[in-house]
């Protein structure tokens, strides 16, 4: 056999060296062939997509690249463009942002006090870190608890004692629970926890704050809600809405799953009514209808009314998302908790909610992102949020006729906020998934 082999001329005697694979089967070329040009349909789709991307980029790139950042008005922008690029060139006039960015961020907040909202934002980010990342020391959570009051004081200002009195009400309520529970049981404690702070706020807080202020006048310049505007107002409404609607939403979800007839029916009715009506209607209710119901001359802060409405609206959605999480838990978890002899609140707190909330995270964050973007609806009730301000900015003769630059800026700002929320939710999901395995 081997002899024949050796003698046959057309049989190789030596091994060929390893050759490089054909060009069309390696690297970028292979990838392009397989993914972009594998069939006639794909070739057509690829070419169409390239054409589309090219059209968009070729129009947008010069616009961004030629953008003008220093000018006093749109006319000046156009003059600069004509002088440097010629009248037909496309150029963005981002000078409007340079000129008005403070207004877009802070609205009509007094410019000498800009450090207050800025500091508030920093404190907010720092303050919620211990809540977001469990690796940080747990004691920092006390700082987070004080955060709402600190932010309230920083943003609105006034005497520090007003804020202290509001906080004192909550402390009183908490103390009432601690003291009354051993004496009179849960019901008495709950009534006390609600009544004592309210009585305190109505009757004692005002005079007490005044007298304390006369002894030790500490405070910041008072800033009215109507001076709030721009991204500041979006963030205030958004953050307050998010912070308040999550606990309220969880309570509503539990209420809807509850066996207690009245609690169940009230929660269901609340959720369905709030959810069944568009947010814009609730905002109009807050701004127009409430004025008729309240006694004439009442000045119930518009921003507060909006925050309440946004919170209620978002809470209804959160409640349904959480209810989904509750329903997704196997019945064994509930029964297991019961068989351990845990009370309702203990089983919810230790067994059910941690699992249900974990399931609901994507839905909850989704609602929050929606809520944050929905804050732009306040433009219809005359609050100057970023979108409202674009109109005001256009109304000045300097900037009349400018559109895209403002919207690009606002879109970018919203994207940063919403994208980071989305990323955090992904991080949280991954982390909880890992812990579970």
């Amino acid at each position, binding site marked *: 056999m081997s002899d024949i082999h050796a003698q046959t001329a057309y049989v190789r005697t030596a091994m060929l060296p390893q050759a490089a694979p054909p060009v069309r089967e390696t690297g970028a070329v292979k990838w392009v062939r397989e993914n972009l040009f594998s069939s006639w349909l794909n070739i057509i789709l690829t070419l169409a997509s390239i054409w589309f991307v090219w059209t968009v980029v070729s129009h947008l790139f010069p616009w961004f690249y030629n953008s003008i950042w220093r000018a006093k008005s749109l006319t000046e922008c156009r003059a600069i463009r004509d002088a440097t690029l010629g009248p037909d060139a496309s150029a963005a006039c981002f000078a409007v942002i340079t000129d008005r960015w403070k207004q877009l961020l802070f*609205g009509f907040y007094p410019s000498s006090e800009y450090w207050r909202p800025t500091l508030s934002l920093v404190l907010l980010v720092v303050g919620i870190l211990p809540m977001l990342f469990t690796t940080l020391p747990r004691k920092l959570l006390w700082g987070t608890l004080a955060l709402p009051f600190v932010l309230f004081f920083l943003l609105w200002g006034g005497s520090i004692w007003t804020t202290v009195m509001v906080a004192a009400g909550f402390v009183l309520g908490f103390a009432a629970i601690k003291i009354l529970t051993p004496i009179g049981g849960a019901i008495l404690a709950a009534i006390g926890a609600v009544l004592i702070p309210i009585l305190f706020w109505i009757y004692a807080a005002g005079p007490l704050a005044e007298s304390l202020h006369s002894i030790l006048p500490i405070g910041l310049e008072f800033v009215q809600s109507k001076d709030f505007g721009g991204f500041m107002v979006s963030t205030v409404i958004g953050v307050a809405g998010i912070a308040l609607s999550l606990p309220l939403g969880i309570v509503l979800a539990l209420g809807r799953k509850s066996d207690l007839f009245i609690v169940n029916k009230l929660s269901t009715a609340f959720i369905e009514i709030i959810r069944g009506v568009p947010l814009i209607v609730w905002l109009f209710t807050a701004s127009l209808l409430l*004025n008729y119901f*309240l006694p004439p001359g009442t000045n119930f802060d518009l921003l507060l009314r909006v925050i309440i409405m946004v919170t209620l609206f978002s809470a209804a959605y959160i409640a349904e998302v959480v209810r989904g999480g509750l329903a997704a838990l196997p019945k064994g978890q509930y029964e297991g908790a019961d068989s351990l002899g845990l009370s309702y609140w203990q089983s919810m707190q230790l067994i059910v909610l941690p699992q249900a909330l974990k399931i609901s995270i994507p839905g909850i964050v989704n609602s929050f992102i929606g809520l944050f973007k929905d804050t732009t609806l306040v433009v219809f009730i*005359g609050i100057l949020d970023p979108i409202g301000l674009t109109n005001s900015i256009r109304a000045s*003769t300097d900037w*009349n006729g400018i559109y895209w630059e403002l919207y690009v800026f606002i879109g970018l700002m919203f994207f940063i906020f919403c994208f980071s929320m989305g990323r955090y939710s992904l991080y949280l999901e991954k982390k909880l998934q890992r812990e579970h395995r």
Partner: protein
Amino acid sequence: MNKTLFLGALTVASIAAAASSAATLDDVKARGKLNCGVTTGLPGFAAPDANGVWEGFDVAFCRAVAAAIFGDPTAVEFVPTTGETRFTALQSGEIDMLARNTTWTFSRDTDLKFDFTGVNYYDGQGFMVPKSLGVSSAKDLDGATVCIQTGTTTELNLADFFRSNNISYQPVPIQTNAEAQQQYLAGACDVYTTDASGLAATRATFEAPADHIILPEIISKEPLGPLVRHGDNAWGDIVMWTQNALVSAEELGITSANVEEMASAPTNNPEINRILGTEGDLGAMMGLSKDWGKNAILAGGNYGEIFEKNIGENTPIGLARGLNALWTEGGLQYSPPFR
């Protein structure tokens, strides 16, 4: 549930803090500021500048009223209102007066229970066309496509005008002024129609304003003016006569430049003296100080000065006085005598 109750408590607390409003003037004086409702932004009429200071034609009237009351044109809180919220804001007392280029109509005066204190701008619906269309009168617009804001009186006015002139048109419905601007410039319609002042302001923003003309026909009456609530006539009088003082000042030649000098000593003209408080005491009859008229004129000048500064021919808006000239110059601006 604690949180809901807390919010409820806040409501109760804020109601408790409310005071009943007897006379608007007393409320305003106690507050130390005039709450004036304006638009959220309309070129030439009301807009905040880069520092958040409101400027414009309507804003100037708010400032004049504040100056008449407090002697200080900056003692005003400007409350931005939208087309939907403006009337409720006034009815509920959130604002003391509304200067938001609002058309004076029968139902607003009677049914909605407001008092218009006069007309500070006589507006009307007009047409804007590109020069290249070669049209010089709205009656030549047969078969034209017209950009029109839906659900407004301008839509009805347009239909009436074309029907009564026996010509046809093709409507292009749009939602907002900003959209209209884009559509018109993109050539989606031959004609854009809205209030003439709005057309002028829109045209001013074009890259080449000279390529577009506003046709001479005005097809509707839109008298715009400040308004107050029914029922407090003393307050209405203050707003009305401040406005009249500005018009009279133009007629009598009192300007922001010479008002100090004229008010320092009585002049030969008794009406000037009465307005400026150097003769008689008209201010006291309204519960204001003696120099209220001087302060109002000092705030932003007389009617003509306010017009020229904000929307006049030397501004980008570039409106001619037209109907808003003084009655002595063929316009409709006319003030009753100060006596």
